[in-house]
């Protein structure tokens, strides 16, 4: 009787002990809690970079994906021969300098989806404060580039922590918020020519606006603005992810129609 009890006890304790020992013999990783950061207006670049690095490697969770180069673009060394993030950031999106591009990538990553990757990154402003976001930007800039984040950036964002509310200064300047009804003004305000060429200005990342009305219908243009992912023009498939899908919300119906008609008339 007692022999049986002891045997049962031994089996139970032995099994539990084996599980505990095995669990204790593998790498021990603890989750990291992000530190609350608070910077004064005259914070130095070094302080920002150091805080950003700690976040990148620890509590921010960035290194889980961005360190491997398989789930997400490699940020620390090289990505497909384009260099470190600090080098390539300014070239990624025309019209956004390095700082603006990095900040926007953090708060609205899917709008700046890098081709070849799936959209898995979360809006980091849901989990990080604006201090922390700017520290990360500073750290990324330091990877091969020059740190231009200053205390002023943080203060201009200061106190705005909740999701979505943190619209970076750069985007506002590039201006989706124009109320004009003049098509050219609307297009300028929305940085269309950042990717499309019109009358010799703009960048040839997307299809040219010259003669666009002769190539496609007004309906097609409207659809392409509202739902750019629906289909790319021939030869531009690779860049389709760069076209923001948010114009449908940013433009008023009148503005949208003005732009569509304006483009459709350019034969």
């Amino acid at each position, binding site marked *: 009787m007692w022999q049986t009890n002891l045997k049962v006890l031994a*089996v*139970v304790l032995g*099994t539990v002990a084996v599980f505990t020992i095995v669990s204790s013999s593998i790498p021990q990783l603890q989750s*990291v*809690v992000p530190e609350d950061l608070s910077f004064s207006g005259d914070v130095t670049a070094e302080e920002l970079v150091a805080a950003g690095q700690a976040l990148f490697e620890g509590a921010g969770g960035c290194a889980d*994906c961005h360190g491997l180069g398989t789930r997400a673009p490699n940020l620390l060394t090289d990505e497909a021969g384009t260099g470190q993030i600090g080098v390539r950031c300014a070239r990624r999106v025309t019209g956004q300098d390095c700082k603006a591009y990095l900040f926007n990538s953090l708060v609205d990553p899917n709008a700046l989806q890098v081709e070849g990757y799936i959209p898995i*990154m*979360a809006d980091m402003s849901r989990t990080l404060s604006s201090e922390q976001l700017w520290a990360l930007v500073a750290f990324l800039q330091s990877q091969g580039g020059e740190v231009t984040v200053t205390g002023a950036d943080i203060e201009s964002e200061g106190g705005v922590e909740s*999701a979505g509310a943190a619209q970076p200064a750069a985007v506002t300047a590039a201006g989706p918020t124009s109320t004009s009804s003049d098509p050219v003004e609307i297009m300028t305000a929305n940085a269309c020519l950042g990717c499309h060429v019109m009358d010799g200005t703009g960048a040839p990342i997307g299809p040219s606006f010259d003669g666009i009305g002769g190539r496609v219908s007004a309906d097609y243009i409207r659809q392409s603005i509202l739902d750019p992912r629906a289909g790319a023009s021939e030869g531009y498939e690779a860049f389709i992810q760069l076209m923001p899908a948010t114009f449908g919300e940013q433009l008023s119906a009148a503005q949208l129609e003005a732009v569509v008609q304006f483009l459709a008339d350019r034969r």
Partner: protein
Amino acid sequence: MSERLPSGARRWPLWLGGIGLVTLLTLVSPDGILAQEISRSYRDFPLIGSRTAIWIAAEVHLLFAAFVLGVPMFAVVAEAIGIFGKDRKYDKLAKEFTRLLLVAYSATAIWGAILSFLLVTLYPRLWVYLTQIFAPSMWAYAGLFFLESFTLYLYYYGWDRWAEGRAKLMHWGLGIMLNVFGTTVMFIANSWLTFMMSPPADVTPDTSPAMVQFWSAFANATWMPINIHRIIANVVFGGAIVGAYAAYRFLIAETDEERAHYDWMGYVGNLIAIGALIVLPFAGYYLGREIYEYSPGMGQTLMGGFMSWLWIIQAFLIGVLFLTGNYYLWVGMGRIPGAERFMPYTKYMLIVLVVGVIVWATPHTMIASRAEIAAMGGTYHPFLGVLGVMSAKNTAVNIMILTTFLSFLLYRRANKEPVVEWARTGTMIQGVLFVVCAGIVIFYGIYGYFVTAIVRIGFSVYQVLAVIATIFSVVAIDVAIGRGAKSRGAIRWGQMPERSQYALFILAVTFTWLMGLMGYARSGIRQHWHVWEVVRDTSEYASTPALGYASQIISVCVLIFFGLVAFIFWVGGLAEKPVLSGVGSEGGD
């Protein structure tokens, strides 16, 4: 498997928590006296700290709760077999299950009360937050708990009184109601903790809890996946604990009759546990998908972030389960006349299982010293590295499920001699189905290496569907073949080597431990949030501890649980003594 909570956030299944307490607190909370309490976010617990205190309370509570939910499910099924199959044996079994239930029930409530007290005293701010959203469901919870308790009393104490005819059917209906109430109670508690994992996207830190839509918070993204996962896991767990109970009674039995009864009971418990275990990975897969869908970041933390090593441990535990479960079946073949035919094949199934375990537990990043890393040229092995990825692991686990299913099939078939004319053809078809299924699983496993990640994820669905389809069609054929089959001799219940019974203990302990582990994972991925990205954990225990520490807490919870269960069963045994057999057993543990 499901629960327990570690880190910052307190989960609280709050299972069958103390009714009065819940009611009282929810009535008081929204505006009244807790106003000052809100300013005080946390209180510390002496010695072990509040995180560990609430962790242990929640986990032990959950283990009991899983048990008292799982057991009624098959008690009702067993009673139905007894009624409609006219087999008194099953009726007796169902009653014995229910007796275990009765004694475990109060322990569940006690731990529920401990959990709620700890939650209220240690995490008042979170408690108030949750009550502001969930107060109505807490009242409903208390009411349903009340109904569940009294249904259980009627069900158990009315067993002998309503034993015949219509009354028996009504009694069976009571059993069904018991399950309905119990499951509803669990669904309610699940909504609270899944809300903490996956609050609706429109809830932000600035959202006042009073403004949160009740239904959107209640039916949040991971609610239904967790419900399903837990229902199945409860069945598995209940079966495993019943198996362990039967194993113990078998070991201390003094008469052959007793031994035969408990051998059979252990077999049924194990059958239920392993049978439900086979479908559990599919529920887990659904849950995982929903987590990814809800927040890729959270999914990433779970699978690739600081928790990635946890899956190696999980693989190890599931390997133990598969091997032990099959082992019990194979040993059991020794008591079945006619099983000799199949005995030579067990070694091949064993080889498949061992290879499966090896593949499944091969880490992607290997632990190695500097010299070994140099020899490999990195922490990924150039050849075996291919076993570290999802394609290989899904293939391995599907093949292991298939093999386990084959073990069951042979076991079922062992003492039967089919009489239908097409028995041979039918068996051939079954064999072909197995081969085709294994072919599909392996094909997609290998093909997965040649496609992109997003396509590959879809492949695991095909693998799973192939396995499920095979299981269902093979069982259907088998039932048809077995119709009117001649027996090769009755199973010699009770003639079982003792070591097989220890296998049942290992199964029960492993299931329990695995529940603790997965609960740690589920709760831990919230990291430093009470409510994911809404309510931040600002206490000193905000971080989720590493696996080594977690494993110690899990072990402590498992031991507390088994200690209490042993005591409860012993007490139950004292009362039952005269009923079971003339000789009487000396319970004790």
